[in-house]
């Protein structure tokens, strides 16, 4: 019998990857392609959805070729995607209406401020469990309907369709199936998180016609069969990337949490069948839903700028040639020299949610070298995570015992050690740093019976590295105090217009 595999499509913010996994959840091959970022105005971030689709079309066969396998050996394909990014396209021609509006885009700020004061705003918040913010896709759809002549009428006639990235990809892969999964749907503000279907009241509030929305499906379950890229292969799962990472880390039990270090960083805590409403600046979100079972929920701490601060240090300041060199530079000094960087580039996300904040570098003296700045860059990530962990402990009433980590920045030993030091808990990396892709693969494999159950997946999880806290508690408290004072300096920078 020939060995079979599962393929994950990880459609991320900067690139798209197709990864082939084996039965033990190990990476067999990988094909990756970056796509163009469009910045037409300050605060605007766009992608070309067609370019992304063409990348998927090319990367799928490429990943299979590199693994030396054919479509007939692929048990299922799963999708993990950048969340909240909004695509609208023509049902007949399949052409997107303009560029996709990316999750980092803040063009809807004025609209969101206006909607926040409109009657019914509180009820939308209640149903979606999300604060009204530019981060989510609902306001983006409204913005497009308002700004594109004739779009609303076409949407009402069902001629144009809305979707987040997984919806767009499934529609292209299957040749016209218009579906989304509950995790992605839970990031629109349009979903009722209890019924797990579109809320007619929320749609009315935002003025979005039901006709343009996809059908909401469980995350784990066969969506359909691909006709292109992987002809004949079943699409077994779709999840938002952070939810996929939670799944890939096998955090299936309430109280289990993971943190993914990427462009931004996202800490998710499984809260089980219970939706926990945060009183400390976290989001409530759907973690996953297996077909035929109730949904699992999660508390989420979203931090906008972590890895992208390193990219900024590399590309805008040109102090390093590649991202990993930040560690080399940071190790040229013993500490931060009293310097702190708070990267509130587009305001502060969790747990502050202060859109008017902007970034600061504080504690500058003539003593500070680029080595100190490099340390401050890495420390900024660790302290932002500490703030989110504190909020999560307060909301859940539990105390985090260990932090399961994944993502590119886990290759940075200095950061991981510092993370363990500032949290005062062990930081553990599993034997698979590509947990976003792995989660999509696990979910898809589970849907088609490639893996029998969640317990089987859990047995694939092994510890690959562990960092234990070594920092003196007085030093930790003093540094955290300094960090908090640095954060306070970022607030109220942008004045209301």
């Amino acid at each position: 019998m020939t060995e079979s595999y599962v393929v994950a499509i990880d459609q991320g913010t900067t690139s798209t990857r197709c990864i082939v996994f084996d039965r033990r959840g190990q990476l067999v091959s990988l094909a990756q392609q970056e796509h163009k970022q469009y910045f037409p105005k300050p605060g605007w971030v766009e992608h070309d959805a067609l370019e992304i689709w063409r990348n998927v079309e090319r990367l799928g066969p490429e990943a299979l070729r590199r693994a030396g396998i054919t479509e007939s050996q692929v048990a299922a394909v799963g999708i993990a995607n950048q969340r909240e990014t909004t695509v609208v396209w023509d049902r007949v021609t399949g052409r997107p209406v303009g560029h996709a509006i990316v999750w980092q885009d803040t063009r809807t700020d004025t609209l969101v401020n206006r909607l926040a004061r409109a009657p019914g705003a509180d009820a939308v918040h209640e149903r979606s469990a999300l604060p009204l913010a530019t981060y989510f896709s609902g306001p983006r759809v409204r913005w497009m309907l308002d700004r594109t002549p004739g779009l609303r009428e076409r949407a009402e006639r069902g001629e144009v369709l809305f979707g987040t990235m997984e919806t767009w990809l499934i529609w292209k892969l299957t040749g016209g199936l218009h579906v989304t999964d509950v995790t992605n749907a839970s990031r629109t503000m349009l979903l009722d998180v209890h019924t797990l279907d579109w809320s007619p009241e929320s749609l009315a509030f935002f003025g979005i016609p039901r006709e343009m929305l996809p059908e909401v499906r469980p995350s784990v379950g066969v969506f359909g069969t691909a006709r292109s890229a992987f002809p004949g292969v079943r699409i077994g799962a779709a999840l938002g990337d952070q939810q996929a990472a939670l799944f890939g880390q096998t955090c299936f039990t309430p109280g289990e949490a993971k943190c993914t270090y990427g462009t931004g960083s996202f800490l998710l805590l499984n809260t089980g069948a219970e939706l926990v409403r945060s009183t400390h600046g976290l989001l409530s979100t759907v973690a996953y839903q297996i077909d035929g079972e109730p949904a699992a929920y999660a508390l989420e701490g979203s931090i906008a700028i972590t890895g992208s601060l390193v990219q900024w240090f590399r590309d805008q300041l040109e102090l390093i040639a590649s991202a990993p060199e930040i560690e080399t530079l940071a190790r040229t000094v013993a500490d931060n020299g009293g310097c702190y960087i708070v990267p509130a580039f587009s305001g502060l996300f969790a747990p502050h949610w202060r859109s008017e904040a902007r970034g600061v570098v504080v504690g500058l003296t003539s003593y500070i070298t680029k080595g100190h700045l490099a340390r401050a860059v890495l420390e900024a990530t660790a302290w932002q995570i500490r703030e989110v962990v504190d909020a999560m402990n307060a909301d859940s009433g539990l105390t985090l015992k260990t932090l399961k980590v994944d993502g590119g920045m886990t290759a940075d030993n200095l950061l991981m050690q510092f993370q363990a030091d500032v949290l005062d808990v062990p930081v553990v990396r599993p034997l698979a740093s590509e947990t976003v892709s792995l989660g999509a693969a696990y979910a898809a494999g589970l849907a088609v019976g490639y893996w029998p159950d969640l317990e089987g997946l859990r047995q694939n999880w092994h510890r690959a590295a562990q960092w234990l806290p070594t920092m003196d508690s007085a030093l930790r408290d003093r540094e955290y105090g300094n960090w908090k004072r640095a954060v306070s300096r970022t607030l109220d920078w942008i004045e209301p217009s």
Partner: protein
Amino acid sequence: MPGTVQSIERAAAVLRLLAGGTGRLTLGDIAHSLDLAKGTTHGILRTLKAVGFVEQDRVSGHYQLGAAVLRLGTSFLDINELRSRSINWADPLAARSGEAVRIGTVLDGEVLVVHHVFRPDDTFQTLEVGALLPLHATALGKALLAYSAAGAHPAPDLDRFTHRTLVTARALSTELNHIRTVGHSVEVEEFTPGEAAVAAPIRGHGGLVVGAIGISGHVERVCDTHYQPHPRLVAYVRDAARAVSRDLTAAER
């Protein structure tokens, strides 16, 4: 000049030109100065850029001498970059072999461990990144030594760790020859009694060995009854080394 390679002469001329200039040069400047076609010049610059000898300004597109030229004598691949690029291949190696994985480079006559993946049995283990190991007594060290200039003339007196450690220059030299023939190195109780290891070289641009990746574990698990490593494990190590090497040379630096 018979017997010389024209493209290397041209590359040397480009480097001299950039080193002599006061600022950054455009493609046109360089092509014009050397009386070369723009296409030819661009090919040379692109290659020099890939190996780090030339840098291109992201905004203006102007060229200048790369930092790697100034660091020719020292390690040209940042160790944190090496870890970052190999992490995706070290994990599957640990999963398939069931053993701990380490990646090492040479630092002042020793092996510096730059990456360590625990043996995937969830027992308590300590991260050994930053540890130093002897070159002549470990599989990682021998794989590095076999392909380095220092390996051609091993030091005359070598430290003994066990009765199996190779302590004469002659024995080590024979061993390194063998490693170059088969393409991987083996360590059987030469550093720690009861421990065995297998390693293979990681190659960067132009085939230069920039590190080694290997597994280590109990000799009964790694080797058969004749103290030979299981061919299956050797194949996993070599596959991982090849995969990392491919990634290092494929990507734009």
